[in-house]
């Protein structure tokens, strides 16, 4: 089996998230927010495969909170009293400033969520931990504990489905997940104990070597970040 290193260091991808997020947080320009979102999207699809189904689900989940945010700002926006009226719906006056603020906040929230989620979907968690251990001196004991924790989720999911089925067969009713807290805690502690013993017995130590070397090449991305910040600043002045 041939091991293929990732095309892009996960650490770079991780910091790239912030490079896209910070200008969105600083800017007050709706178009710039969307431009950054599109740029982030192009950047991601260039390196990684994205599951559009997941992105679609996020958009669905965001619709209600975003509408709520829009309406709330529209009604309670400060300083909108003297602003010109944009429209009137069922006797309610929509002020220009309130509308602009609502639209801007919605666009910012939407873009922040989408950019964060885009990177969350594309980052390989195990490669990120390896990159942190190799490039940012994350202690190996912490790094491998994190990896074991990620593995535990799959194990515990299996355990949960078995315990739930045992409950269903025994009490002939569907179970409220909180009722399975105790057996799940026992299962999790057993897993933690075994994983800890496994790491200790396999000689985990600081002087270890790595089969997969993750090299960090942040310069290009830092340059990208500088350019984006420059655009964001200019947009603000305008």
């Amino acid at each position: 089996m041939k091991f293929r290193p990732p095309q892009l260091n996960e650490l770079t991808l991780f910091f790239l998230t912030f490079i896209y997020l910070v200008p969105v947080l600083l800017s007050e320009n709706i178009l710039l927010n969307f431009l950054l979102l599109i740029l982030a999207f192009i950047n991601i699809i260039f390196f990684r495969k994205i599951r559009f189904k997941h992105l679609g689900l996020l958009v669905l989940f965001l619709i209600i909170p975003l509408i709520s945010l829009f309406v709330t700002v529209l009604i309670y926006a400060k300083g909108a009293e003297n602003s010109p009226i944009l429209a009137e719906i069922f006797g309610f006056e929509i002020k220009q400033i309130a509308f602009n603020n609502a639209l801007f906040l919605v666009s910012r929230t939407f873009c922040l969520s989408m950019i964060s989620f885009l990177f969350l979907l594309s980052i390989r968690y195990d490669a990120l931990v390896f990159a942190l251990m190799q490039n940012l001196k994350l202690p190996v004991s912490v790094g491998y504990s994190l990896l074991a924790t990620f593995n535990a989720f799959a194990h515990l999911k299996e355990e949960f489905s078995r315990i739930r089925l045992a409950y269903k067969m025994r009490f002939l009713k569907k179970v409220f997940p909180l009722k399975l807290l105790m057996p799940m805690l026992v299962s999790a502690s057993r897993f933690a104990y075994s994983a800890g013993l496994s790491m200790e017995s396999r000689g985990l130590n600081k002087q270890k070597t790595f089969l997969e070397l993750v090299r960090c090449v942040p310069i290009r991305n830092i340059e990208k970040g500088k350019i984006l910040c420059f655009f964001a600043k200019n947009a603000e002045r305008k």
Partner: protein
Amino acid sequence: MNQKQIYFLENFSFRYPYSEKAIQWSGNISINENEILLISGKSGAGKSTFLYALKGLLPDTIFGKLKGKILFKGKDVSQLSSFEKAKIGFLFQNPAAQMINRTVIQEIAFGMENLQMKQQEDYLKDSVSGFIKIGANGKIEKKDLKEIPWTQKFPRLPNISKGEKLIEIKNLSFSYDNNHILKGLNFELRKKEIIGIIGANGAGKTTLLKLIAGVLKSKNGKISYKHENIEHISFKKYYRNLALLFQNPENHFLFSEVEREIAGNRKILDLVGLNKMQKRNPFTLSEGEKRRLSLAILWNLKREIFLFDEPTFGQDYENKNKLIELIGKMREKGNSFIIVSHDYPFLNSVCDKIFLLKNGYLRETQIQN
């Protein structure tokens, strides 16, 4: 032959903080190069603890009171550096809990990376020279190979007349992502019948149990309970007649007392030999006791059919005998069983029919009397 000494143990004993019983060895024992040693004993006798001691995990990683000497190549094992300890390989009972990384290659590389290696050299030794037996009192004795009970023989359950047809499987097929696991299976289970299914790892034994339990659904074939397709029966009605015993008995435990697990039915505890453990926490029982308690839980449900997934996993000879006895008693009360296992001697002693699941097909095998 002049053999190099690897391990030397002198008056070794270890006691867990919460245990009254200590694992002890009075005298000296040496383990030499090119030797393979078998350590045998009952469930809970301390076999794993003995291995932890050899690995140097006692008493710093696993707390307790350690007495005596354990020398690895002339050096006290507790004084070995983690780099030196890593040279002593250790394979745990539960492989799933031993995995740390996400991919196979990372997992294999992990040990080698800790040894600061880039390549692995693997060699096997094939000579068995002796074995160590750990008795019920926790005392370790060195025995000769001739004393090992190599073949396990269990008493066969008597043949009894079978009743009506309960489960019928017709042309059952199942596949995971175009991988055909089961291909056109046919068999039936009658009242008071015990059917065993044997097969290699990944043959589809557990998948078959899940299909019968209605956890998985098949697009091809039919499973009926009392002539009714199980897909048309509500889960409440179906599970009132059927229960599944998982490989890990802890999956059945929900309460903090043994007594509560079986809803206060002390008769059942007597039958499974756990009458003195009513107030114990089920999770703190020994492996054999846990297995018997999980059986008691299912028995207390008064179901008609039981599906057992690897019931003898991690069980010693005595516990297997108790299990056979229990299954016999349950069958006398009118229960039927489908048992999936790798343990052919066990299946041979309890089953009326044994099927071999191979390449997706089911073939009946001969029962040996």
